[in-house]
């Protein structure tokens, strides 16, 4: 009669106790200077425009993934609307700068604010639901926003999209890497500067007092409420902040590519970000950035496997999940 009668321990497979291996964490005061140095010297090492483009693309993915990381690592919710918020940022920046309504920097600010506002508008009703209902509610919203980008032709350009979006005015800023690479190095520094800022925001929000409240909400909302915090406010604030960061990522993307079209802002965009966060360690900002780099760079070397890219990634994702299950990490 040694069968388990008591409910199984959370995080164990069917009640059997398994050894849990802790998630590695890097303290910010060591990691940040290291990251800054790495970003600073990277263009000198790459020294060619193609690699610099790949590295910039990795940075753009990292910003979006970090936005998602905040939501998954904080309130523990998954959002499929983030592809839409990403699109809001990209389209707002595109519309404002193509029409010369605003210059780049104020436009980027407005784009981020617009994403935050849409995040609040979506979040207030959607956050009434939890976990899977929330995921599906945001799925509905993500699909709706994608339809708006494709269908509201007079504003978004419809399926044709918006072209000739001006890039960030960076010419003239002296940059050490430009000795080796003429073009692209300023964009690289700009994108990775944003990555580092968003990364620090992630770490500060998730590990500070705010993050502690979020963590407690995940354990017990009633308990947090009894301590005088309002869980609803914390959840909404994180969601809106995350949406704003996604819009910032969208703005950065739009100015870098100089074009926005409806195909780039679907629920699959959100899903890619979720995959990056999942492999990166769910709430682990450094892991998220590292995964964004790996998932951007590796396919560039897998041209032989180009046709099977999707299949290879699916297998990779499954292997990661399997390993996490074997280590006893709860996903």
């Amino acid at each position, binding site marked *: 009669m040694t069968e388990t*009668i008591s*409910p*199984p321990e*959370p*995080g*164990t*497979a*069917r009640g059997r106790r398994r050894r849990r291996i802790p998630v590695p964490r890097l303290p910010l005061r060591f990691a940040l200077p290291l990251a800054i140095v790495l970003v600073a010297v990277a263009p000198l090492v790459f020294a060619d425009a193609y690699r610099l483009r790949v590295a910039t693309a990795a940075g753009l993915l990292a910003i979006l993934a970090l936005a998602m990381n905040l939501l*998954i690592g904080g309130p523990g919710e*998954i959002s499929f609307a983030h592809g839409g918020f990403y699109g809001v940022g990209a389209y707002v920046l595109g519309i404002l700068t193509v029409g010369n309504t605003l210059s780049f920097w104020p436009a980027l600010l407005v784009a981020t604010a617009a994403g935050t506002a849409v995040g609040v508008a979506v979040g207030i*009703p*959607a956050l*009434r*639901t939890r*976990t*899977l*209902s929330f*995921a*599906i*509610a945001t*799925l*509905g*919203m993500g*699909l*709706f926003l994608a*339809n*708006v980008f*494709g*269908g509201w032709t007079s504003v978004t350009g419809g399926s044709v999209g918006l072209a000739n979006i001006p890039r960030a005015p960076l010419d003239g800023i002296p940059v050490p890497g430009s000795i080796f690479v003429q073009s692209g190095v300023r964009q690289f520094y700009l994108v990775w500067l944003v990555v580092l800022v968003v990364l620090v925001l992630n770490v500060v929000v998730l590990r500070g007092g705010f993050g502690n409240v979020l963590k407690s909400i995940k354990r017990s909302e009633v308990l947090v409420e009894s301590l005088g915090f309002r869980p609803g406010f914390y959840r909404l604030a994180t969601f809106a902040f995350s949406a704003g960061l996604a819009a910032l990522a969208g703005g950065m993307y739009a100015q870098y590519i100089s074009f926005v079209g409806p195909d780039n802002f679907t629920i699959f965009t959100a*899903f890619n970000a*979720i*995959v990056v966060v*999942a492999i990166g360690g*769910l709430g682990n900002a450094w892991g998220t950035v590292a995964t964004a780099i790996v998932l951007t760079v590796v396919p560039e070397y897998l041209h032989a496997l180009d*046709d*099977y*890219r*999707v*299949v290879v*990634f*699916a*297998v990779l*994702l*499954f292997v990661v*999940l*399997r390993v*996490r*299950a074997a280590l006893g*990490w*709860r*996903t």
Partner: protein
Amino acid sequence: MGLAVGYALNGLVLGALYVLVAVGLTLVFGVLRIPHFAHGVFVMVAAYLTFALVVAMGWNLLVAAPVVIVALGLLGLVLERVVYRPLGRSGELALMLAAFAVNQFVQGGFQKFFGQEYARQVSFPLDGSVSLGGVTLSVQRVIALVVALAATAVLAWAVRHTKFGRATRAVAEDPDAARISGINVDWVHRWVFVIATALAGLAGLLLATFVPITPFLGDQPLLVAFAIVVVGGMGSVVGATVVGLALGVVESLLAGFGSQSWSSAVVFLIIFVALIARPNGVQGARV
């Protein structure tokens, strides 16, 4: 008026096919707790298999039907054992990501091997149409509607009144209590998954006679089915049926009188609003 009724009836057929996908999804979700993002690829695989048997090999659709359904059930059996069970209790997010990986794997593979070819379709063996109070509906649509609704009704009855159905509801309610009561939880999980994929197979078989077969055939039904599951109450077969039929009619009317591209936008907005208004689903019941 006649036009509206015609659209509504076509929508009912569309809705019945959505329901077939949605009841499987709702069972897998309610009992196994898997948000099964790969459910749509079963529909797609079944459509390709139907094409292979009926068009390439010249079988009769009636002979091919049981083969397709059993084959899809077997596929579900393998998948549950190989992919989902090993992930065990590592959480809903892990299961969702695994499901998406399966989706990408199968869809990517089919796109690689069949994606470049022209979209194909299976012709329905019976022609003709039925007139009903001034509105005509093709025999094909009538049969699809009847088959889909009959399969759903049998499932709803089985969940309510058979021993297996009782065990299924017990597992959905509380897996640990069910295990203590002597119910083989793994066994229930396995068969619920097999039944769900077999139903998706039936949906794919029927769908193959209506729309061109592409690797993305299952995407739209999957997304709508997810909406149906959430709005209809997760795990509720009756809720899924009501909401599915209603959503099919709404989409068909919107596409008929409005524009095609906005009809899906409105449907997704309806989902969002309905979900917010009733966070636990319209029915709110479990299985």
